[in-house]
């Protein structure tokens, strides 16, 4: 299938051409489906246009990330508008996703009005069930108290939690609080203890989906793109046959396979950021206005029966 990259857990990982293609890809959303224990992702434009057809009866959900409501600088003066386009695309899917995952940076400055605006736009989504984790922009000035009151009422600690859906175990983690000088993202002792306990009773054949804001693998430490104690967290997941880690934060898609664990980062719905090391800092990347929607996106997920593989299809908001 054109534009599809297969994660094969029996091999070393994705091919170079596919990797480079994904590096270049930025869209508005990804549909994830789960079928027979395998996670598969589709670019929304391909699904809407009928070029990619998720297996019927599979669990599918959509990941959106980094909406940065409140941002109004050169890189995108209408972040509400681009989030709305992302929601429109989700609503246009032939098979509505079971729920949305928002992997953080809902707001730009943790302001009540920014969260209000986000809530208002998401109300227009056909998928009413949204599971959140905070980004560092959602916990400014109050260590996440407001975020927790709004989005984490059912959560533990600083906002971590898990839930099960169609036999898949989902774990939302928080790695944007209590950050140490010179360090990266951090999960902390209490959360790690909770995670170890949370997955203890699960069968090794249970598909696991972990989602958190900052990547749980070291993408580029010079820009803080990684999590100090992620290896500890992942060690609790080594015995599972299928583990998928979904992150945001870096405003571009990137993926990696390590043993049984497939890592994937989503695009932002607000503004792109440069590829690691290609700019003096990871600040918002300015692109010509007519190109902006080609570097924003969402993510679809789908499990496929029989094969231990994860597929990704590129999906910009506009080509």
């Amino acid at each position, binding site marked *: 299938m054109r534009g599809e990259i297969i994660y094969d857990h029996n091999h070393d990982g994705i091919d170079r051409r596919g990797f480079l293609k994904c590096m270049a890809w930025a869209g508005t959303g990804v549909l994830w489906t789960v079928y027979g224990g395998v996670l598969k992702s589709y670019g929304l434009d391909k699904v809407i246009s009928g070029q990619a057809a998720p297996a019927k009866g599979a669990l599918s959900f959509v990941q959106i990330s980094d909406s940065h409501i409140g941002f109004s600088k050169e890189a995108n003066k209408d972040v509400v508008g681009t989030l709305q386009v992302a929601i429109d695309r989700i609503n246009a899917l032939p098979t509505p996703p079971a729920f949305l995952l928002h992997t953080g940076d809902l707001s730009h400055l943790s302001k009540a009005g920014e969260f209000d605006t986000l809530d208002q736009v998401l109300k227009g989504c056909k998928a009413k069930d949204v599971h959140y984790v905070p980004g560092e*922009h959602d916990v*400014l000035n109050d260590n996440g108290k407001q975020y927790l009151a709004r989005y984490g009422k059912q959560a533990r600690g600083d906002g971590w939690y898990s839930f099960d859906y169609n036999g898949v175990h989902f774990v939302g983690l928080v790695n944007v609080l209590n950050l140490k000088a*010179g360090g990266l993202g951090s999960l902390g002792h209490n959360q790690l203890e909770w995670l170890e306990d949370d997955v203890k009773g699960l069968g090794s054949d249970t598909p696991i989906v972990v989602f958190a804001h900052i990547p749980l693998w070291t993408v580029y430490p010079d*820009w803080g793109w990684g999590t100090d104690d992620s290896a500890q967290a992942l060690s609790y997941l080594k015995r599972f046959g299928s583990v998928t880690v979904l992150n945001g934060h870096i405003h571009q898609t990137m993926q990696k396979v390590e043993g049984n664990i497939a890592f994937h980062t989503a695009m932002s719905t607000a503004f792109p950021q440069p590829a690691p090391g290609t700019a003096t800092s990871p*600040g918002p990347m300015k692109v010509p206005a007519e190109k902006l929607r080609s570097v924003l996106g969402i993510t679809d997920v789908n499990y496929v029966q029989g094969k231990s593989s994860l597929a990704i299809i590129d999906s910009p908001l506009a080509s």
Partner: protein
Amino acid sequence: MKKTRLSYGIAALLLSLAVHGSIAGQKPAPNEVTIDNFSYKPQTLTVSVGTTVTWINRDDIPHTVLSTDKTTIVSPALDTDEKFSYTFTAAGTNDYYCSVHPHMKGRIIVQ
């Protein structure tokens, strides 16, 4: 009287130059730390006891100034062009970082 007015004029001119120079991304004014491209400039600043240091954020992304002891210097999140000032009343070395982007580190040496 005339002399005083002239002095005010020169002071205003100097202030204007200082502000303008800072906006243009040139060397920060004395006792000012510019936050630009996810870094503090200068990264190490030496001042005398009693000096007020001002941080100004020139990035499109919010940053903070937080002492590594997490208690001495605690700024709110600074949006673009927002400033934060702190007066150093004791000699010593003050290491700080950005609580949002902890790879950003700076130091104020007070003599």
